């Protein structure tokens, strides 16, 4: 780490941000065209994704080279920390919106459709046959949304996945200890264990999804239960995939000798992110699968 008396690093002008904008613009425009059934959509989106991924390699590559060259002083390091911290807070709030939707549907909307509170007439006028329950396997309007057989029980694969993610939180901490003691081989092995557990989790989730779709008849279109189930676990799964990819990056960096016992913000940022997906999963396990 460079001395804290050196001045704050101000980067030269950079072409990466504008490239990121062009990439994301093509991704969004392509996705919108695709949703509107325009044939060119997937291609525009694919080009955009390519540009975006190229930008990620370029931008992060630049920052990694700068970091390894030792030009980030303590103050720059603190800016990165605040940046990552508040980014994770924003991610928490994104999940909060979907948890809010789950609680609202479960505690208010579904009981109201069944006539709870002062909603007697709602029940009578809309779907008088509907009897509310959670998980709600028979829909208020069975002609638009079909029923499903059953939901995925908490104490099967989801409980196993809980154990996997919790252990991965442990292994990443052991890797961090190894890094602080400058034990390179332990660092690499424990990191490898962490990312393997991460991808194992994603694989098991994919298996559960396949099971739900093919055998239980539980899909994204299965009313509010299927909606909240797949949107919450789906966005979480996406975040685990991103986190496991980030773990892979810092694993490769560790293997090639990056990070020092007193200077490894990149490692810590990924570890924080990993703990964040871990905590979100605990919320999911309790409120989506279990209770």
């Amino acid at each position, binding site marked *: 780490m460079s001395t804290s008396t050196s*001045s*704050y690093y*101000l*980067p*030269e*002008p*950079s*072409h*990466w*941000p*504008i490239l990121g*904008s*062009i990439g*994301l*613009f093509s991704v*969004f*425009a392509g*996705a*919108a065209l695709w*949703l*509107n059934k325009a044939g060119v959509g997937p291609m525009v989106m694919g080009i955009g994704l390519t540009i975006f991924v190229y930008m990620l390699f370029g931008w992060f590559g630049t920052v990694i080279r700068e970091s390894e060259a030792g030009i980030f002083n303590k*103050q720059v390091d*603190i*800016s*990165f920390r*605040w*940046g990552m911290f*508040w*980014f994770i807070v*924003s*991610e928490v*709030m*994104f999940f*909060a*919106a*979907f948890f*809010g*939707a789950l609680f*609202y*549907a479960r505690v*208010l*909307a*579904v009981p109201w*459709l069944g006539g709870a*509170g*002062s909603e007697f007439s709602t029940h009578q006028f809309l*779907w008088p046959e509907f009897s509310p329950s959670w998980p709600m396997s028979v*829909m*208020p*309007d069975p002609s638009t*949304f079909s029923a499903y057989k059953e939901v995925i029980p908490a104490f099967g694969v989801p409980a196993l996945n809980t154990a996997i993610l919790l252990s991965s939180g442990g292994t990443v901490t052991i890797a961090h200890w190894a890094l602080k003691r400058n034990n390179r081989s332990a660092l690499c092995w424990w990191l490898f264990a962490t990312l393997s557990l991460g991808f194992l989790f994603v694989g098991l989730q994919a298996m559960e999804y396949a099971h739900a779709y093919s055998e239980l008849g539980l899909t*994204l*279109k*299965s*009313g*509010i239960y*299927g*909606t909240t189930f*797949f*949107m919450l676990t789906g966005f979480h799964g996406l975040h685990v995939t991103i986190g496991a990819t980030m773990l892979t990056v810092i694993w490769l960096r560790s293997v090639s000798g990056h990070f020092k016992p007193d200077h490894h913000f990149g490692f810590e940022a990924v570890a924080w992110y990993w703990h964040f997906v871990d905590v979100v999963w605990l919320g999911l396990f309790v409120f989506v699968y279990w209770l």
Partner: protein
Amino acid sequence: MSEAVMHGHEHHDHHPTGWKRWLFTTNHKDIGTLYMLFSLVMFFVGGAMAMVIRAELLHPGLQYVDTQFFNSMTTLHALVMIFGVVMPGTVGFANWLIPMMIGAPDMALPRMNNWSFWILPFAFTLLLVTLFVPGGGPAGGWTMYPPLMLQTGDAMPFVIFAVHFLGASSIMGSINIIATIFNMRAPGMSFMRLPLFVWTWLITSFLLIATIPVLAGAVTMLLTDKYFGTSFFNAAGGGDPVLFQHVFWFFGHPEVYILILPAFGIVSQILPTFSRKPLFGYESMVYATASIAFLSFFVWAHHMFTVGMPLAGELFFMYATMSIAVPTGVKVFNWVSTMWRGSLTFETPMLFAISFVVLFSIGGFSGLMLGITPADFQYHDTYFVVAHFHYVLVTGAIFAMMAGVYYWLPKWTGHMYDETLGQWHFWLSTISVNVLFFPQHFLGLAGMPRRIPDYAVQFAEWNFISSIGGFVFGLSQLLFLYIIVKCIRGGEKATDRVWEGAHGLEWTLSSPPPYHTFVTPPQVTDATAHS
């Protein structure tokens, strides 16, 4: 002062010239300029849409545009003015001023700062291109309520992705501002020495980080409901359209403070300068701002009193809303007390700031009226609401930004603006804006609904007057544009301090400041913090 200027000159980085300078820049002043210019351009785009609306409403009956296009205009006018004018404009002020006010060499994360800005033109391309797709632009209102919004044609995914894109820009901008204020303050620049503008942006950034992701969630739910068969907002599958309103307004109410808190900050910088007195009750201003932000998370359902909620909900949200009047009252009291027995002069920034205090308060009072649940049953979705939020956003947020532009333009450009034309702009704007929006109170109380291209004949007179006010207000802003362009191109040389009563680190720098300032941080003491 000379010491600070010296620091400014010791570090002259070269940067690319021409268009590459602006595309690749990592300099907070360049990025601040880009934000401000973007905001100015969008001000005329959104303003043109408002002119279409007022032209159609000049007389009863359908005159110039079809009803679908009219609804697109109200929807896009709002989205452009909120996400394209007020938010980028205040972020522009933040970029230019926060590093100079706290003695920092730049924003904490300069490359990300570039990205926050350069998302905007692309996101607005996605948004505005919808006017040309099959089915026309979004016409369900900026609040995007389902099931109406779900009837949008091909525009739907473009609008939603534009909102996601804009959200990414806002979140990155806020993260940068928080990291800058937490980590880049010069030695001795303690939190309680921060200029109030810096405080208001710190608190605004918290609001953005906490609420923009919720908006992203809400529009994602709309997208999946329309294209992927989910039933968040479909009662047939156990969902509820009202759920959208809850999620949206959980974002939406803090959002209105996101729009106004930086304006509070700007006015709190200007009033002391032209009163030649320190800001009255600095600490109470900080706490009041924080209280308003905190309370803003518990009042969202006052936007939905008529949608159907349990009585306890209606009461809770009414009382919570009323309580916001207390910290807001503290602020207005402090602004007035700052001027009390001051040695006042009335240059253009001061005129706009005083106008802000008076007219924003009118908007605040009509907000209190709307916050009373039984009264809101009468006012809801009428022109009274339109009048209310235009008083807080046009004579509030926009007037404060205009005040700020006149106040800091000499610092930014090194030239004084044309004071005579500035006064003309002020009086034309202030008179016409009241002709434009005050009659809308009467229309609303008489029962004229909002978001409608035609109306019953008894509303004709006040609509005519309102439209005339609107055209004059719109034309007056061309004068604003002319004054800005003239000031950038030349004019009387501005001094470093610009205004004799100005205090704060930014006034210790030359006008215009060098490309890099405070590369070596200044030492701030109690004496220099406000000098």
